[in-house]
C-alpha cells in the first residue's frame, strides 16, 4: 500500500511546501484567492494533462495535445462567427478529439509506429490546420461565454472556484473513476507495467490502445474548449509548448514516463506545482520567466531520479 502512494505523497508535499513558502514570503499569498486563481488559470492544461496521464500510464506519449488545444479554439471561434452556440461547437470538438485520438491510436497499434512520431505528425497536422484557418486571434462573442466566465462557487476565505476549475475537477473525478474503478483502467496499468505479460494475461491490446489515445484526444479537446471559453477567443498559437508542460505535470504528479506507475490525481498537483511556481515568480517581479524553466528542469530531475530508485528497489526485491 505504502510504496504505491509514495510518489503522490511526494508531489503533495512539494506542492504544500511551495504554497507555504509563498505564504511566508508574500502577504496575501496563502489564501484561497490565490489558490482559486491558480486553479482557474491552469485548468485547461491540467485537463489536457489528465488525458495525457492515461497515455503515459500505458507506456506511450502524446505530443499533439497543445496543437489540439489551439485547433479546438480556432474552430470554435469560427463557428461562433457563423452563429453556432458555443456548447454545440464544444460538443462537436469533443467528438473530434475522440476520433482524432482514436485514429492516432490505431496507427500506432496497427502500423507499429512509435507513438512519439505518430503524435508528432498529429502535432504538425493540427497546428498547421490552425494556421490555415486563421492567422490571428478571433474573438468568441456569444453571450454564453460571458455567463460561463462569471459562474463560480465562492470558497471560504474569499476565493472563488471558477467555472473552468469546476469543469476540471469534474473531469478529474471522472478520470479517477475510470482509472481505478473500471476494467479499462486496470488494463491501462497492466499494459504500462509489463506489455508482454498484459497480452498473455488476456488484455485486449488493440482495443485498449485505441481507447487510451481516444481518451487522451477527448481530454485535450476539452482542455481546448475550456481555454477558448476562458480567453473568449480562438488563437492559432494557443497551446504551443503545452505538450511539454502537460508531460512535466504528469511526471511531477508521480507518474513514471515508462508507464505502469502513477495516479491521475497526482497530475492535478503536478500541474498546480507548475502553476504555483509561475505565480510565485510573478509575485516577485524581479525574477523572470527563466526561473520557471530552470526550476522546472531541476524539479523534473529530482523526481526522475526519485522515481528511478523507487522502481528499481521494488523490482529488485521480487527478483530471486
Amino acid at each position, binding site marked *: 500500500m505504502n510504496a504505491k502512494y509514495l510518489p503522490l505523497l511526494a508531489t503533495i508535499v512539494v506542492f504544500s511546501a511551495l504554497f507555504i513558502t509563498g505564504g511566508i514570503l508574500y502577504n496575501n499569498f496563502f489564501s484561497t484567492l490565490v489558490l482559486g486563481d491558480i486553479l482557474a488559470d491552469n485548468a485547461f492544461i491540467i485537463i489536457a494533462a489528465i488525458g495525457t496521464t492515461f497515455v503515459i500510464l500505458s507506456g506511450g506519449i502524446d505530443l499533439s495535445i497543445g496543437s489540439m488545444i489551439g485547433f479546438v479554439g480556432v474552430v470554435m471561434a469560427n463557428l461562433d462567427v457563423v452563429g453556432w452556440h458555443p456548447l454545440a461547437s464544444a460538443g462537436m470538438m469533443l467528438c473530434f478529439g475522440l476520433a482524432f485520438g482514436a485514429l492516432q491510436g490505431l496507427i500506432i497499434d496497427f502500423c507499429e509506429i*512509435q507513438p512519439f512520431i505518430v503524435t508528432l505528425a498529429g502535432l504538425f*497536422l493540427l497546428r*498547421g490546420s490552425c494556421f*490555415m484557418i486563421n492567422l490571428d486571434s478571433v474573438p468568441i462573442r456569444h453571450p454564453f461565454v460571458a455567463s460561463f466566465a462569471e459562474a463560480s462557487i465562492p470558497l471560504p476565505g474569499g476565493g472563488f472556484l471558477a467555472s473552468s476549475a469546476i469543469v476540471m475537477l469534474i473531469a478529474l473525478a471522472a478520470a479517477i473513476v475510470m482509472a481505478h474503478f473500471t476494467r479499462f483502467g486496470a488494463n491501462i496499468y497492466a499494459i504500462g507495467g509489463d506489455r508482454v505479460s498484459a497480452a498473455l494475461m488476456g488484455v485486449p491490446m488493440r482495443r485498449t490502445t485505441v481507447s487510451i489515445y481516444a481518451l487522451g484526444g477527448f481530454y485535450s479537446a476539452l482542455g481546448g474548449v475550456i481555454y477558448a471559453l476562458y480567453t473568449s477567443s480562438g488563437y492559432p498559437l494557443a497551446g504551443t509548448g503545452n505538450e511539454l508542460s502537460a508531460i512535466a505535470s504528469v511526471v511531477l504528479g508521480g507518474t513514471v*514516463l515508462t508507464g505502469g506507475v502513477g495516479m491521475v490525481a497526482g497530475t492535478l498537483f503536478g500541474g498546480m506545482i507548475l502553476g504555483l511556481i509561475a505565480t510565485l515568480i510573478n509575485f516577485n517581479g524581479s525574477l*523572470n520567466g*527563466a526561473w520557471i524553466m530552470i526550476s*522546472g*528542469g531541476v524539479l523534473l530531475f529530482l523526481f526522475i531520479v526519485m522515481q528511478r530508485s523507487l522502481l528499481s528497489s521494488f523490482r529488485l526485491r521480487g527478483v530471486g
Partner: protein
Amino acid sequence: MWPLIALAVILAVDGFISPGFFHVRVVEGRLFGNVIDILYRAMPTALVALGMAIVIGTKGIDLSVGSVIAIVGAVITWRIHAGDPHFVILLIALGVGILCGLWNGFLVAVLDIQPIIATLILMVSGRGIGLMINLLYGGTNPSFTSPLLQGLSVGHIGLIPTRLILGAAIFGALWLLIRRTALGLFLESVGGNSAAADLAGINARLIKFAAYLICALCAAWAGVVLAADTHTSDPVSVGLYIELDAILAVVIGGGSLAGGRIYLGMTVLGALVIQALTTSILTSGLPPEYNLVVKAVVVIIVLLLQSENLRNALYARLGGRKR
C-alpha cells in the same frame, strides 16, 4: 532510396508549377536561387539531424538540441560583449556543447535513465539557462556584431556560401569519424543488440557517451550559425521545434527509432526534403500557413509506407490473396 525519390518528386513539382524555379544567378559574387536557398536554410537542421541520427542509432534520442542552441546563442552574445576574441568565442561555444553532451551522456550512460526522459530535463531547463545568461551581463539588448560570425552566416568563399562549405566540412568530419573508424560499426552494434555488443567486447557505456557528445556538438555548431543569422540571442524562440524536424529528417532518411543503422547522407537528404517542402510552398504561392500541414502529410505518408503491417494489408487487399 525513398528520400531521394521524395526530393526528386518535390523538385519536379516545383519546376512544373514555377518555371524558373531552378534558375540560379550570381549576385555580389555569390550564388543565389531557390535551390541554393533550400540548401542554405536547411543547413542548421541538417547539422542537428546528423547528430540526432547518431544518437538514434544507439537506440536513444536527444530532445535537448533546441535548448543547446539557445544556450550557445546566449553564451556567444555574452562573451562578445565581454570582449573575448571571436575565434576563442567559437571554441567556447563548442565547449558549451560538449558540456551539454557530457550531461546528457552522464544521465543516459551512467545513471541509466531512459533517453527521452533524460534529455527532457535539459530541454525544459536549457532555454531558462539561456535567458539567465542573457541577464548575467546586465544588458537589455542581446544583439552583437561579429565579422567572423557574419562571414559564417552570409559570407561566401568564391561562389559558394560559406555556411554550405562549413556544413560540408562538418559532414565530412562526421563521415570520417563514423565510417573511416570503427566508431560507426560500434554505434550501430550497440543500438542493434546491446547484449551482444557487450559480449563482443564493446564498451557500450563509452559508445553511448560519445553519441550524446557528438549530438550536442552538432547542435552547438547549429547554434553558432543560427546566432550568426540573427545577430542576437533569443533563447525562447531560437531553434524552436528543431528537434522535431531533426527527428523527422532522420526517420525520412531511413533511420529507425529502435536503433541500428545510421544513414548520414540520407539524413541530410531528409533535412533537405523538409526544407524543400517549406520553400516549395513559399514559391508556389500557397500561403505559408500550409507548411505545417503539408509537412505532416508527407511525414505520415512516409511512415505509413515504411510500416510493414500496412504494406501487407494493402497487398492482401489489392492482390486479393491472403498472405
